[in-house]
């Protein structure tokens, strides 16, 4: 596979060549992860490679601007007045240089001055792969090998960016596998709300990588929404390193795609760092949604709290694999992980695996997972107030998922997510819902 990829990489970014070449070489050896890998036990990328027949990457020039002729759900064209919107089509960013909120710098490769190049290189990591000797993700290597653009979002030290930034990652149809790459650098003491939305045309294939670094005392509220069309496929790797006394809140929402796999790693690297992760997914139809999260405590007095909620309906398959690792250096840390799932039909499947790995004594950790059905008493209560069974189910399903949106502090964004959720639940296939009367 490596030869055609090498031939088709876009040129013009020589300083990236070494990095891309080594990533490509590593990927050539490792290939895509397969189900023999415990972390990939339930998710096969075979279908992905069948459809992915064109290795070309975006050239750095967007072919169309985002907007009117949006190829998918109407919700995709959402632009909020109170948010700063950045568009990327097929991994190429149209980063505007005007109107950027104060305290914030946004650069794509096209607009990258030498002073920012070092920052980008630092965030991308060493060209030879992770310095700590951990096995690099082959999907990150693949992204690096094929990347045509990078979006850098950086805050100024001490800046509190009032306006949320909304990044819309739109992908056109297969056969190309799109490789969006997002880098976020939170300077010490800065604050930002960042929303990241995956949308695309029918058949979109995406391998996204996001790398985030939080400096001392900084705060990031990250909202990630996957709303790809029903036959889309997404692999996504998100890596967040949280520095001293910094805190990150992640809200992850999976509503679309045929196959979606997110690998989220949060490293609590500085003393007193904290992370809150809320997740929700809706695996209905024939959707396959896999969330694999790693919260790693490396420094003393670090805190993590993760709650993931999932629904599987019809022939959907939801997977949650959440691991908390408390390293020897992380004395005095606290970690809590819960996963709650609803299985709405017998043909759907949920696999959940919460794990704790603790290498130090002085910590407080808890984890648990449940999978159940909608509460019959609550259903009856709603019906006794006049709601028909389908509406009652929908209300309870939405309510179950909505709890995961509690981390979204921006009212407009929250409302938008609620609307998206509601629309998805209403559009669900009613034939399989039953009437219960």
């Amino acid at each position: 596979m490596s030869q055609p990829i090498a031939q088709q990489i876009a040129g013009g970014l020589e300083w990236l060549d070494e990095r891309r070449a080594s990533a490509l070489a590593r990927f050539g050896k490792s290939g895509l992860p397969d189900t023999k890998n415990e972390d990939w036990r339930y998710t096969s990328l075979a279908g992905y490679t069948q459809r992915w027949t064109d290795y070309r990457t975006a050239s750095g020039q967007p072919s169309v601007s985002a907007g009117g002729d949006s190829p998918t759900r109407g919700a995709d064209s959402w632009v909020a007045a109170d948010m700063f919107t950045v568009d990327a089509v097929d991994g190429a960013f149209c980063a505007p240089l005007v109107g950027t909120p104060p305290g914030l710098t946004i650069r794509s490769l096209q607009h990258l001055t030498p002073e920012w190049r070092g920052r980008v290189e630092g965030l991308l990591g060493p060209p030879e792969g992770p310095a700590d000797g951990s096995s690099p993700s082959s999907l990150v290597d693949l992204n690096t090998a094929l990347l045509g653009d990078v979006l850098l979002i950086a805050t100024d030290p001490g800046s509190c960016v009032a306006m949320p930034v909304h990044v819309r990652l739109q992908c056109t149809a297969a056969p190309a596998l799109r490789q969006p790459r997002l880098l976020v650098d939170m300077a010490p003491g800065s604050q930002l709300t960042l929303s990241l939305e995956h949308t695309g045309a029918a058949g979109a294939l995406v391998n996204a990588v996001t790398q985030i670094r939080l400096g001392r005392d900084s705060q990031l509220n990250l909202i990630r929404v996957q709303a790809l069309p029903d036959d889309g496929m997404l692999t996504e790797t998100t890596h967040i390193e949280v520095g001293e006394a910094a805190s990150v809140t992640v809200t992850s929402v999976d509503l679309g795609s045929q196959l979606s796999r997110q690998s989220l790693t949060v490293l609590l690297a500085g003393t007193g760092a904290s992370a809150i992760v809320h997740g929700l997914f809706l695996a209905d139809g024939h959707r396959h949604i896999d969330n694999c999260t790693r919260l790693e405590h490396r420094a003393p007095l670090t805190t993590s709290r993760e709650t993931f909620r999932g629904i599987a309906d019809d022939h959907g398959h939801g997977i949650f694999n959440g691991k908390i690792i408390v390293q020897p250096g992380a004395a005095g840390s606290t970690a809590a992980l819960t996963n709650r799932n609803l299985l709405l039909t017998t043909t759907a499947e949920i696999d959940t695996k919460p794990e704790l790995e603790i290498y130090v004594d002085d910590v407080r950790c808890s984890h648990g997972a449940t999978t159940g059905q909608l509460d019959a008493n609550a259903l009856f209560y709603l019906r006794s107030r006049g709601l028909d069974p389908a509406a009652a189910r929908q209300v309870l399903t939405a309510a179950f998922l909505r709890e995961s949106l509690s981390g979204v502090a921006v009212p407009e964004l929250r409302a938008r997510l609620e609307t998206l959720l509601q629309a998805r639940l209403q559009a669900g296939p009613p034939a399989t819902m039953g009437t219960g009367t």
Partner: protein
Amino acid sequence: MNALLQVSGLRVAVGGKEILTGLDLTVRAGEVHAIMGPNGSGKSTLAHVLSGRDGYVVTGGSVSYLGRDLLAMAPEERARAGLFLGFQYPIEIPGVSNVYLLRSALNARRSARGESEIDAASFLRLVKDKARLMQMDETFLQRGVNEGFSGGEKKRNEIFQMAVLEPILAILDETDSGLDIDALKVVSNGVNSLRDPARAFVLVTHYQRLLDYIRPDFVHVLAGGRIIRTGDRTLALELEAGGYEQIVAAASP
């Protein structure tokens, strides 16, 4: 006057055991009926069967509501036809606000009557009025249904819902249990304010106390799955003084 509710020889089994053994009850518009009885007499079973809860097998008899076969109606159809059940143990539903539930419930009822959905301003005015009647803080409206409510708040919320929905027949299952005296007064006041010549109430209760505040037209004593005695409110006082045993013993063949 035609009966709103006509229960005739109703027999109901739960898990193979007959709980109601031939119950007769006639409720007309404007009336308040109290159904009293010792624990295990079938009071809650009656309330549940009338509301359409699963798990009850009707083995005999009939129930007619507004001339329709109530037992053939789904729970939501009963609600839309103006039947309201006040739950003994109201359910907590986090993530669904009180105000959302009320609007959905009210619109379901209106739609069944061929009316359009209530407009936002009228709805807001209505719920605020009724919240005031029930001495409920308006912040309760935006909270999840019964989420984190105390026992008394939950019962108050049931009556609040009833006040907004303005049912034709309300069945209140042990609404007085778990209430302190102040909450009991508020709940009773809510019920009394809804008394109307076109509306009827069936109060299922273990204690006479509620009837100090809501004066019933009829008191029925339920024992062994049927009504063994019917009287006016003095019967409740008699029960309070002598307990159930005496009356049950007197009624035994």
